[in-house]
């Protein structure tokens, strides 16, 4: 195709440390660029959720909230992240690549034959940082609860377990089974992030099946609930700080962060458009998107 262009992945990697809010912008931008490049090369995949949640991932992985060893991810005592919304794999892969756990250039293999970057995460591929396979919605959060139970009640360590679900995903009933058990087992080491972009494949979430009010539901299920702007680094930091405080103070309450985001955020023509849930950009669109991200 004449409009194809050479795709190159930057090799810069970022440290995981306490940061000032403005320091996250270049990291989130780097994640978004990798997502766009990987998706245009793949020719299929999900654009909207990954781009919309890139700011959350930047803060969670690079702000000192999650502890991991990029050189020995699975061999180390670590905090865990479970991507319950498996279709958002590109943002998790791009984020992990930006830690330096695997080369960012490997993003070019997304969804390709024999890749470690499966269309939906496959733990069997052994990609550093991928804790569990996911893709059938509603399951990752229960897995995360099991991990948090293991840390808090059996190994009795101070590890944290993070889990991100979509907002359409919480239509799955088993999500609420997991939520119920997180507070029943007093998992203050468990942080549930809901990527609240209000979009799912068929349309706006309240029209497909209304999940609101989410905040009150989570509160009723025993969570300390924080609503925040999922594109504000300051608000995201405050939310993760409160989760850390909950754990340190032994509140016995799990934390839920309802991060208000726009699907496709960062790329103007995708912003807040549910049509971008499950498709990749064309080469022309990718060129425009990358141009915007580079400005």
């Amino acid at each position, binding site marked *: 195709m004449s409009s194809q262009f050479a795709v190159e992945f930057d090799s810069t990697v970022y440290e995981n440390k306490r940061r000032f809010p403005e320091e996250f912008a270049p990291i989130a931008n780097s994640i978004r660029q990798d997502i766009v490049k990987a998706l245009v090369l793949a020719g299929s995949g999900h654009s909207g959720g990954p781009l919309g949640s890139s700011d959350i991932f930047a803060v969670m992985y690079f702000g000192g909230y999650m502890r991991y060893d990029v050189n020995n991810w699975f061999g180390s005592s670590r905090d865990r992240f479970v991507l319950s919304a498996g279709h958002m794999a590109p943002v998790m892969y791009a984020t992990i690549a930006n830690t330096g756990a695997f080369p960012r250039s490997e993003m070019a293999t997304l969804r390709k034959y024999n890749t470690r970057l499966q269309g939906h995460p496959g733990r069997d591929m052994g990609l550093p940082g991928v804790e569990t*396979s996911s893709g059938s919605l509603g*399951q990752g959060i229960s897995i995360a*609860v099991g991990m948090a139970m293991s840390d808090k009640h*059996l190994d009795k360590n101070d590890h944290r377990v993070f889990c991100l679900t979509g907002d359409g995903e919480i239509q799955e009933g*088993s999500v609420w089974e997991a939520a119920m058990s997180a507070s029943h087992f007093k998992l203050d080491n468990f942080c549930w992030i809901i990527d609240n972009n209000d979009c799912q494949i068929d349309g706006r979430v309240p029209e497909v099946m209304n999940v609101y009010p989410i905040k009150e539901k989570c509160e009723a299920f025993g969570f300390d609930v924080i609503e925040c702007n999922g594109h504000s680094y300051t608000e995201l930091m405050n939310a993760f700080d409160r989760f850390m405080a909950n754990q340190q103070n032994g509140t016995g309450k799990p934390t839920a962060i309802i991060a208000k985001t726009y699907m496709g955020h960062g790329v103007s023509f995708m912003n807040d458009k549910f049509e971008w849930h499950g498709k990749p950009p064309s080469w022309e669109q990718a060129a425009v998107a990358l141009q915007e991200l580079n400005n």
Partner: protein
Amino acid sequence: MQEIQKLGMKPTRFGFGEGLVELGTRHDNVVVLGGDITGSVMTSLFKEKFPERFFSIGIAEQNATTIATGLALSGKIPFFASYGAFCALRNADQLRISVCYNEANVKIGGGHAGISVGPDGATHQVLEEVAFLRTLPHMTMIVPADFEEAKKATIAMGEMVGPAYIRFGRSPVPMFTTADSPFVLGKANQLTDGNDVAILTNGWMVWESIVAAQELAKRGIKARVINVHTVKPIDVEAIVTAARECGCIVTAEEHQVHGGLGGAVAEVVCKNSPVPMEFVGVKDSFGGSGEPEELMEKFGLTWKEIYASALVAMERRDKGSSGFRMVKDVAVYNG
């Protein structure tokens, strides 16, 4: 033929419960998840002994299965037990994606399996799960025959690495194995010698098969009864040898005739050494209320069906196969 003694009656679920306690004693990282019916599926024994390693999840089989996955991915050996109707099928997607695709070291105990649940009726009489579970990559699937075997199987599944499922029943069933009887996962046990017909079976139907073999012996027919306690991985060698040496096979199981042990054996036989086969099991129907023995009779799960099927299988073998005729009420292919 050699005598196999009935050593009393006990439910296989007791073996599961005792096996769990033994595992808990041997391994600190064995944990158990309860699904509200801990007394029925005997996880209550573990709960009493190791309360700090027991977690009650309530009536939420999907959640329990995936929590077990999280525990397994954190280095624990979690057992979750409920009724097979709910912990093999209600949570089928969780077993497929979370447990098996992750190769998580999750162990499931499916109780109250088969028609012999009795009065509870069709909703609780799971007759389909063997067919589903044995198609899952990485899954090990065990159907023990009696108390001692259930105990050994439970310990063995806890000490192997990878997803495993054990199926056990509610009602007391004849005991005929002892603590010293051999048990190796994936290795079928030949119980009687004979080359006239092979009866491949598991669960309660093993005892019925032994009785059928004793009755056949009275007619001078020597039946080879093989206890195929592990449906996956299946003992290919034992099946192929039985097919070659006996020339016909009957399978007997407390499960739908489709897709369970009979299906697993047929796959091996067709590929390696095709011989006539007859299938004893529930014939594409749901169960119903009644006493276990009444139901086993009604649904054709006694030694009598195995006996009759053995005769049919032998006749088909001896006549060759070049046409259809009606045997019992089933169309079979023969000369």
